[in-house]
């Protein structure tokens, strides 16, 4: 699927899709974050995606793995908060591992490696009420070669499941049991981005 699209159109389209979904949901993400964190997740993510968008004419000329790495670096430098290093690490590591030794793109393997790196960076695991609670199920869907719509639905479902979780990492962990009953903002942004990416790819390559 990734090879069907011209490189520049793919990278440019992904950047626009992600920027748009974050811009449209930034206030909602900050609202979720105000409930259990410091209330800046939406504005932080918007700042990051705007920085990536501003750099798009350069990024679309890079090979996909390099573009992912550079995008990750821009997020690290611009997002701030824990989300910057976490999303940055995710993209940097996907970029580094996307192309296997045989020259083939292996998204499942790259994702697995990148998600492990995010878990190490955040010292978090499954059920800790973080974006990992969306990333793990998304990876599982990719591994079993689910369709784009299936991946997207699973991401949304996984984000909503953080509602019942007790936060173990980040500012929300200070709230202990009071963090239960709120959707994690990082999980929500991760689901929104996943859905936006799937939607874009679906539009480009209808099954």
């Amino acid at each position, binding site marked *: 699927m990734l090879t069907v699209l011209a490189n520049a159109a793919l990278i440019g389209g992904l950047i626009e899709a992600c920027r748009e979904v974050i811009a449209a949901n930034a206030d909602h993400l900050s609202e979720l974050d105000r409930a259990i964190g410091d209330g800046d997740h939406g504005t932080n993510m918007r700042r990051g995606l705007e920085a990536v968008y501003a750099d798009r004419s350069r990024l679309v000329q890079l090979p996909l793995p390099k573009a992912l790495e550079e995008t990750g670096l821009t997020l*690290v*430098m*611009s997002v*701030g908060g*824990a989300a*910057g*290093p976490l999303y940055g*690490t995710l993209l940097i590591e996907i970029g580094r591992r996307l192309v296997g030794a045989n020259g083939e793109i292996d998204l499942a393997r790259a994702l697995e490696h990148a998600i492990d790196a995010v878990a190490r*960076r955040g010292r978090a695991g499954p059920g800790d009420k973080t974006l990992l609670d969306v990333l793990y199920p998304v990876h599982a869907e990719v591994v079993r070669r689910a369709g784009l719509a299936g991946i997207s639905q699973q991401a949304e479902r996984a984000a909503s499941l953080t509602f019942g979780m007790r936060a173990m990492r980040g*500012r929300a962990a200070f709230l202990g049991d009071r963090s239960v009953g709120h959707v994690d903002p990082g999980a929500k942004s991760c689901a929104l981005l996943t859905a936006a990416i799937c939607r874009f790819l679906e539009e480009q390559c209808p099954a």
Partner: protein
Amino acid sequence: MSGMNPKSANVGIVIVSHSPLVAEGAADMVRQMVGDCVPLAWSGGNAEGGLGTHAAGILAAIERAWSDAGVAVFVDLGGAETNSEMAIEMLGEPRSGRVIICDAPLVEGAVMAAAEASGGAALARVVATAEELSP
């Protein structure tokens, strides 16, 4: 002030807080204690100057406080630590191996570490002194 070479042999201190006021205030307290004989820098706030942290600002602070003897970094809350780790990685080898994030209270840790550093102690000693404050 002795006009000492800022690239002194003493370990450098970096203070990272979500608040620019906290970071600058803690740095002022360090300065009062050790004057100019310890390389010192701070990073506070996000890229727009609001509350938060960002890796680029932390990286710049580490560069300002750089010492070949190493740099001890003091952080307040979660994002400050994660962004500091990222900044240290971006510093690259071999310098990244000479920067340590201390598991210590921001203000007390930085002041005690600086006092230790001003006597010419090695990085490991400076870090250990600060971390003795953490139960």
